[in-house]
């Protein structure tokens, strides 16, 4: 069910309203008294329920930074576990609510939904309220938003939170609309200047031609399992974003514009997809499988495209040296990952070494695409909540994340020989993963960083 290859069913939960068979009615009792946050909670709750009704796995909150929000999350029966975008940011404190949940069954669907509703209730009650409180401030406290977002952002609030976390939108609420409008206009002006000119075949340099060709080869091969990305308008958007990103000129200093250090590099096409999915979720309803942009105006699509472009710029600004000549940033992160694995689980490190396996042979792509290719798409979006919350610390945090990801299978890895190792690691078995699994990776990464912090020598 949560297999990413099968069209990323978990993405249904992005805004699962249309995907849920029948309406969810919650009893007064089940809803509880939540005071100020009640209203927004209900909508969120229903969407989340719809998501879970599609058989997706509630989060256990194991990767949570704020442990205060987690009480004993009792493990659920296996069949109830599947990944979910919809349950993002939820901390399932279902343990104590299962009995109560059983009482709700008559109101919702038989059996399993009852339990899930209870979990979502707890998610909506605290976390969404916290998010809403933060986002409701005149000037959003970014540090607090980072802290909260680190453990996952509720799907409906994700677009706004991502924009804020990336610094695309200012924390000051009053200025947001104006800046958003300006940035979107700015992008719209770039389209004819860069893309249209190149696409028309006029005045192209060899470099521009090469960039356009490379982008054109890669766009149709972007997220092949997700039909949404293969609609003609979406393909066009992706092509423009990537091409313009690749050849744009950026200010070096006053009046001097230069090309950025790296042009378009394969894999950057993957990095746009979470932005596209999340920003589009503000306009399209129902499961992502059924998304069509046919009903969207050109204006709206261009706005989404502009947001994706600027957010991609912001993200890549922090990891530019991943894509410059010889990709030193990636090599460094791979090296750090290797050092961390040696530090944390020496036997695994020496086994890999004994088998002649080099980290660069499998971890290169992990860094290049920020693990997007290694986990089902809905989980990648969850992963990005944490990445974006890390902000300028992302580069450093990535090595910890990769080490934790690798060591998810430490016992198995030690049994494998070179060839089995490389086959295993180039397609790690994450198709059945849920948020709980990715959050476990993130929380281990967090712990390791905390324990190594200050001990800078561990990388030497």
């Amino acid at each position, binding site marked *: 069910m949560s297999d990413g290859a099968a069209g990323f069913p978990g993405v249904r939960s992005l805004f699962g309203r249309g995907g849920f068979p029948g309406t969810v009615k919650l009893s007064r009792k089940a809803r509880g008294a939540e005071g100020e946050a009640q209203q927004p909670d209900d909508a969120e709750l229903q969407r989340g329920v719809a998501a879970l009704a599609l058989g997706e796995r509630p989060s256990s909150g194991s990767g949570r930074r704020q442990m205060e929000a987690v009480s004993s999350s009792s493990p659920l029966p296996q069949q109830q576990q599947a990944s979910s975008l919809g349950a993002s940011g939820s901390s399932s404190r279902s343990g104590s609510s299962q009995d109560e949940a059983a009482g709700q069954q008559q109101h919702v669907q038989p059996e399993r939904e009852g339990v899930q509703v209870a979990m979502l209730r707890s998610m909506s009650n605290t976390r969404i309220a916290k998010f809403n409180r933060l986002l409701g401030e005149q000037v959003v406290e970014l540090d607090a938003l980072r802290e909260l977002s680190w453990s996952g952002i509720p799907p409906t609030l994700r677009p706004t939170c991502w924009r804020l976390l990336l610094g695309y939108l200012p924390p000051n609420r009053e200025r947001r609309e104006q800046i958003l409008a300006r940035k979107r206009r700015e992008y719209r002006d770039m389209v004819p200047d860069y893309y249209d000119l190149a696409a028309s075949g006029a005045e192209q340099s060899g470099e521009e031609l090469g960039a356009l*060709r*490379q982008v054109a*080869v*890669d766009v*149709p*091969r*972007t*997220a*092949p399992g997700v039909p949404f990305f*293969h609609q003609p308008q979406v393909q066009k958007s992706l092509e423009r974003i990537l091409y313009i990103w690749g050849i744009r000129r950026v200010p070096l200093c006053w009046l001097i514009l230069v090309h950025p250090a*790296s*042009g378009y*590099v*394969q*894999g950057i*096409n*993957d990095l746009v997809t979470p932005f596209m999915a999340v920003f589009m979720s503000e306009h399209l309803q129902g499961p992502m499988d059924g998304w069509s942009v046919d009903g969207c105006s050109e204006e709206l699509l261009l706005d989404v495209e502009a947001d994706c472009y600027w957010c991609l710029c912001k993200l890549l600004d922090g990891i530019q040296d991943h*894509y410059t*000549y*010889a*990709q030193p940033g990636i*090599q460094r992160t791979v090296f750090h990952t290797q050092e961390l694995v040696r530090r944390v689980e020496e036997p695994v490190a020496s086994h890999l070494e004994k088998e002649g396996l080099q980290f*660069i*042979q499998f971890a*290169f*792509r992990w860094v*290049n*695409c920020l693990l997007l*290719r290694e986990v089902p798409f809905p989980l990648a979006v969850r992963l990005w909540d944490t990445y974006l919350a890390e902000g300028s610390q992302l580069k450093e945090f990535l090595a910890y994340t990769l080490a934790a990801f690798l060591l998810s299978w430490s016992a198995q890895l030690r049994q494998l020989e070179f*060839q089995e190792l*490389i*086959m295993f690691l*180039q397609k790690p078995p994450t198709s059945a993963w849920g948020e709980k699994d990715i959050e476990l990776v993130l929380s281990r990464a967090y712990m390791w960083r905390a324990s190594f912090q200050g001990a800078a020598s561990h990388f030497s």
Partner: protein
Amino acid sequence: MAGRSRSDDDYDLLMKVVLIGDSGVGKTNCLSRFCRNEFQTNSKPTIGVEFATKQLSMDNGDLVKCQIWDTAGQERYRAITNAYYRGAVGALLVYDVTRHKTFESIERWLRELREHASADMVVMLVGNKTDLQEQREVSVQDGQDIAKREGLLFLETSALDGSNVEEAFTRVATEIHGIVRKRRLESQQGEEEPAPMPRGISIPITAAQEQQPAQQSRCCS
């Protein structure tokens, strides 16, 4: 050797082969067609390198294990993928018969092979996507000519319909196997007992003075 049941780990020769060529020419699909008989219309661009293996039986009964490294096509990845030429004894240099630009890059790829790979590596030029006949931009003759000039093996393939894919890999493997056998026999002249085929390591074909036999161009059948 006939009748001997052989496991995955039981082989007579291990050889490392690299797949190179511009991005989007179908390297990954050639590999998945050869190793798993699979084809994906839109397979994700390869990042870094990907690895696959396949065992082949040779005419003399030897079992050869091909370790194939599929590389990313984009220029930017060259600095990284160069490292993967090390120890490779064969290469399939792929272009797309429907995009002339990818054919023009052959010279550049050959330069790179000369710089980073063993001089007597067995190289096969592969013109892929013959199923798209109506979009063809590179003729068979053009492919044959450059292969002849550069001393490369040559085949045209279609990863989509599967034609010639297995032949291309098998041809390279057979060539390498032949060279290794010949060399082994030569080195054993005067020795009483023939040494067994080396196992478990890739065999670099280092003696540069020995030119590969039968490096003729050949057209697709």
